[in-house]
């Protein structure tokens, strides 16, 4: 009975940080988003800022831009990541240097990923140089500007580059632990490799595919660096827009920044809920 409180005591240090900084930060942002900002004399609670932000065209296009970038980059990264993991599993070589090398982008920060995208896709980058040398384009300006544009190609490619190894690592860990006998039995009973993949392997890896999708989606939706470095001036991604409002010299603008932050948070909370669901799926499969 004396052990009843033991787990709680063990959790105290971590929870101090989580509640004291993380949750506290979100609550502070929420209070300020309601227009309560004592330092400059705003003490009236109001939904006025929400109304204004949610109906402004600039905000809506930013929201659309962020959702677009996060969706496209995460879907492509997940598909290619699963293909990479499955290819490593099926390839002739095992446990070679390849298995370590593909993980490198996981440890490369997003600022460097921005530089890589810039090196390759800018109008003076490697891709237009190669296209020029084989005669497909005749001038630098014929290469479409993929950076700082409304399609966000540069941002998307940088996120995909970071995402593929992450997904592949997570999925490969599961794939290599699935009992090989299951596939063997199915093959013996006349299934082809495609059927083995879709009916045996895919159900096993589905929950982790889903949870890694949520993680990279949430990251690309809520991160500041890449859209700031590679994105267009308009529309700005939501985190960039929030920061611009935040640094506005007029402090009365703060609530607008906090409303954007709250919308970022609400979307993230939905993702947390979905993430949690994916783990319920995992335990269902393991039963």
């Amino acid at each position, binding site marked *: 009975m004396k052990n009843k409180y033991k787990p709680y005591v063990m*959790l105290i240090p*971590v929870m101090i940080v989580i509640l004291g*900084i993380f*949750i506290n930060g*979100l609550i502070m942002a929420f209070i300020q988003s309601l227009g309560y900002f004592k330092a400059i004399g705003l003490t009236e609670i109001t939904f006025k800022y929400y109304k204004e932000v949610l109906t402004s065209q600039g905000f809506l296009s930013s929201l659309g831009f962020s959702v677009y970038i996060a969706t496209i980059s995460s879907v492509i990264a997940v598909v290619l990541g699963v293909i990479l993991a499955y290819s490593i599993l099926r390839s002739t070589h095992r446990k070679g240097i390849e298995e370590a090398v593909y993980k490198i982008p996981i440890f490369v920060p997003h600022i460097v990923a921005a530089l890589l995208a*810039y090196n390759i896709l800018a109008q003076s980058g490697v891709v237009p140089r190669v296209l020029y040398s084989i005669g497909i384009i005749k001038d630098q300006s014929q290469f479409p500007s993929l950076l700082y544009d409304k399609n966000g190609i540069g941002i998307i490619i940088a996120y995909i580059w970071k995402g593929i190894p992450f997904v592949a690592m997570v999925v490969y860990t599961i794939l290599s632990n699935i009992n090989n006998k299951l596939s063997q039995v199915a093959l013996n009973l006349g299934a082809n490799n495609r059927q083995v993949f879709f009916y045996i392997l895919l159900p096993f890896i589905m929950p982790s595919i889903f949870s890694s999708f949520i993680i990279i989606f949430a990251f690309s939706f809520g991160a500041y660096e890449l859209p700031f470095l590679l994105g267009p001036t308009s529309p700005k991604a939501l985190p960039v827009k929030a920061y611009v409002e935040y640094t506005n010299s007029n402090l009365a603008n703060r609530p607008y920044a906090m409303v954007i932050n709250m919308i970022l948070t609400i979307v993230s909370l939905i993702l947390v809920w979905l993430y949690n669901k994916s783990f319920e799926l995992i335990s269902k499969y393991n039963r």
Partner: protein
Amino acid sequence: MKVKQSKLFSLIMYIIIFLLVLPLIIIIIWSVAKSWPWPSIFPNAIGLRGWKYFFKPTSKSIIILLHSVYLSMIVTIITLIITIPAAKALALYNFKGKKIVELLIIAPLIVSPVAVAMGIHLFFIKLGLSNTFIGVVLVHLVPCIPYSVKILKNVFEITGESMEMQSRVLGASKLQTFKHVTLPIISPGLVSAGSLVFTVSFSQYFLTFLIGGGRVVTFPMVMFPFVQSGDRMMASVYSIVFIFTTLACMYIMEKITKKYYKTEGYFYIN
């Protein structure tokens, strides 16, 4: 048929890995390119100007790099110390509110750090924590905790508690048990968690920049302007140093742990 297929998958694997590694090779070339005008595929002249600038004492790059490593090491150590008991509690015990605690711990991985940082900024200013080293360390803990708990929890789920129980039954004190039984058992997990936490902290830009207010200068912060202005040579030099430092720190962490416990590091992540 089987051989042919596995060759095909090898090919796909090599193509994807090649595309992942190619950009890294390009920055190595850029870091030593003296002149690389359009439309040459290779630089016209090779030079070490970027590297010379980096190693010149007046650029202070090395001091900032060491300072940055020091900060992230402190973050890593604190994160590991506070997450070991938390991960153990979540892995081995059932208690009321466990689900909520798990969700709260995993949430910083998903909720935008931009929102959290701006929200907590005013609070940190009031407490005198903004623009300080301690403030930056504290705010770095938030994105690091979920990774560490996730990995260590997995380790505790696999290893269980029976070895520690035996040690206690045989008369070892709590401290002895922790030092001679628990730590060696979880050491591979500690290496994985430590490496990942170090990387997460070492790569932070926005949190450091907002809470540190420009007073706490870390490596990503000196690198940022070079990337922003499109100075490819300098940005490439800094990027290579960055990646190399991360890999070196991970390698050292693994070596030290191996020396003490003779085990290997793995990623326990899913």
